């Protein structure tokens, strides 16, 4: 059996890209870095107490009383184990990755819902992006963007984008055909149909996609600490490499708390509000 030098070609290709498109990658790196730094600056410079209140209010109005109480205790716990800054750093990375995934993923999903051909082309690509072991993205990301938070964010975007693309497309395709027919019968243009009928009706599905994208970016952010993205991933990584079980556990716990708050809040957006207590 002939050994196909697939890895070799990939290496060559990546080499070529780094040599010839250096300026391009430099630009992207600069842009992403600015966004991450911007978010981080905001999150870190807002005093803890104010941030706590903001989170509690947001949780209360989206997900209800229980989540708000949980969020407050969770944040206090993170603060008391002295991981608040690290958490905010991770949160900035997640925010950036999710934002960029949304900016690319939403239009792509809408386009996929309207073109069967693009749908056919994109499905294997999305499968690839999602199932390729996440670590594999780290290597080319480092090649193109050096070490630091930017390659981490890029790897995160690639890994976390498929759900929002898929579910946007799915949501729009699942809008009942009789409603589509009715709006055609009343003379809606394709644009009116999209913004007045399809997107509003697909919104719950699109939001489910957003929720998954956020969760995936959070899980990837920890892995990307291996290439120096910093934040909570760093804490966990140090715990592992130095066999400090306690530190590792604390870092992991902070990730879990952040994930739970983000999950509950994003899951509740767009659902009927229930302020009197937890969800039924």
């Amino acid at each position, binding site marked *: 059996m002939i050994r196909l030098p697939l890895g070799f070609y990939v290496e060559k290709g990546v080499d070529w890209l780094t040599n010839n498109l250096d300026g391009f990658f430099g630009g992207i790196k600069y842009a992403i870095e600015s966004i991450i730094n911007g978010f981080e600056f905001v999150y870190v410079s807002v005093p803890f107490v104010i941030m706590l209140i903001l989170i509690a209010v947001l949780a209360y109005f989206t997900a209800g009383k229980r989540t708000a109480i949980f969020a407050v205790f969770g944040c206090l716990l993170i603060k008391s184990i002295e991981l608040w800054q690290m958490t905010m750093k991770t949160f900035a990375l997640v925010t950036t990755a999710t934002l960029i995934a949304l900016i690319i993923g939403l239009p792509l999903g809408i386009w996929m819902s309207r073109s069967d051909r693009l749908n056919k082309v994109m499905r294997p690509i999305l499968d690839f992006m999602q199932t390729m072991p996440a670590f594999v993205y780290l290597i080319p990301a480092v090649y193109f963007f050096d070490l630091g938070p930017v390659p981490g964010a890029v790897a995160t975007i690639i890994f976390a984008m498929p759900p929002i693309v898929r579910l946007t497309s799915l949501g729009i395709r699942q809008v009942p055909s*009789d409603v589509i027919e*009715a709006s*055609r*019968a009343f003379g*809606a243009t394709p644009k009116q149909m999209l913004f007045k009928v399809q997107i509003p009706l697909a919104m719950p599905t699109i939001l489910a996609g957003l929720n998954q994208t956020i969760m995936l970016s959070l899980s990837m952010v920890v892995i990307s600490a291996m290439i120096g993205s910093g934040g909570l991933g760093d804490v966990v990584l140090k715990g592992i490499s130095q066999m400090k079980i306690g530190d590792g556990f604390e870092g992991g716990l902070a990730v879990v708390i952040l994930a739970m708050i983000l999950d509950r809040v994003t899951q509740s957006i767009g659902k009927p509000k229930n302020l009197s207590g937890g969800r039924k």
Partner: protein
Amino acid sequence: MIKLEVKNLYKIFGSTPHKVLEMLKKGKSKKEILKETDHGIGVSNASFAVEEGEIFVVMGLSGSGKSTLIRCLNRLIEPTSGVVYIDNEDITKCDKAQLREVRRKKIGMVFQNFALLPHRSIEENVAFGLEIQGVGIDERNKKALESLELVGLKGYEKSMPSELSGGMQQRVGLARALATNPDILLMDEAFSALDPLIRKDMQDELLALQSKMQKTIIFITHDLDEALKIGDRIAIMKDGEIVQIGSPEEILKHPANDYVKEFVQDVNRVKVVTASSIMKKVDTIVYSKDGARIAVRRMKEANLSSVFVVDKQRKLKGIVTIEDTMELIKANKDDLSEIIDSDINEVSPDVLIGDIIPLFINSRYPVVVVDEERKILGIIFKVSVLAGIMGGGEEDD
């Protein structure tokens, strides 16, 4: 005036419809074509014209092509061949923008499963057509309210569709179609998803609304009773073809073929056949000035026990019986006006048999059919009512 006209309309589903169209025109049957080419025939050579203000019902069982036909009228489905004129404009030649204008301004549509937008309030649903046209929010909400009032849903503006019953949701569907004030309403099995009682209400309400609005309505249904009740004219479809077009009575009395005949045999004629089609011509009448002796002679000649009395203008005055007239003669009087019994039942020619039957309960006289000036058009005996219900060969003579 003709509002909408369809000429030689075909719809063939499949990859090469025009090739199949030629086969169809050469006389191949639907089954042969499906077998040989895997193309389905939706509508085959449909032609009809609908008058302004008319309710034109297209009736057929599922798969007969009626839903395809109605969608060809506003090109939700593109016809394969043929033309559709609305106000003498050929809809099949419109480009996309022109077609949108026609859909926005001229045609309203009501759907079987309501097809309301679940994320919008009732008011926003009804205003949808106007919103699409770019009408400002105040004006479109005002029109939506008017439209909701028409269908009897005032006060539900802020509710959501899911909070309303099926019948109410379809009222919203109707209000939405009316809000843009179109000339033509396309109603695709609009009442088929409703409970029988609600359905009857909606039919009555549609007829009441129609008497006010005078829209041109194309109504699709698979229910013959519904078709007969609301249709001014009915087109019966089978396998994509229109097999008969006619008024409800024409279709009942002269079915075009065995298919239609079989279809209409179970119809409840009480609700369809009218007084005019079962009445008998009146050969014998007496003018009030004629006097008792002439009246008796006429009755004896015609072998009758009573006779209707009219005045000089042939307007109905009442009825006299032979017994009363003989009494009068015995008393040596001649003026019929003393004994005229004016307690008789009069109906206009378009009254249904169902409404005539009860009139016989308290009266021993036949029912008189009169025109607006109370001139006698004919009379109905109990026997002819029964014959009308049974669908026997009771022809106008």
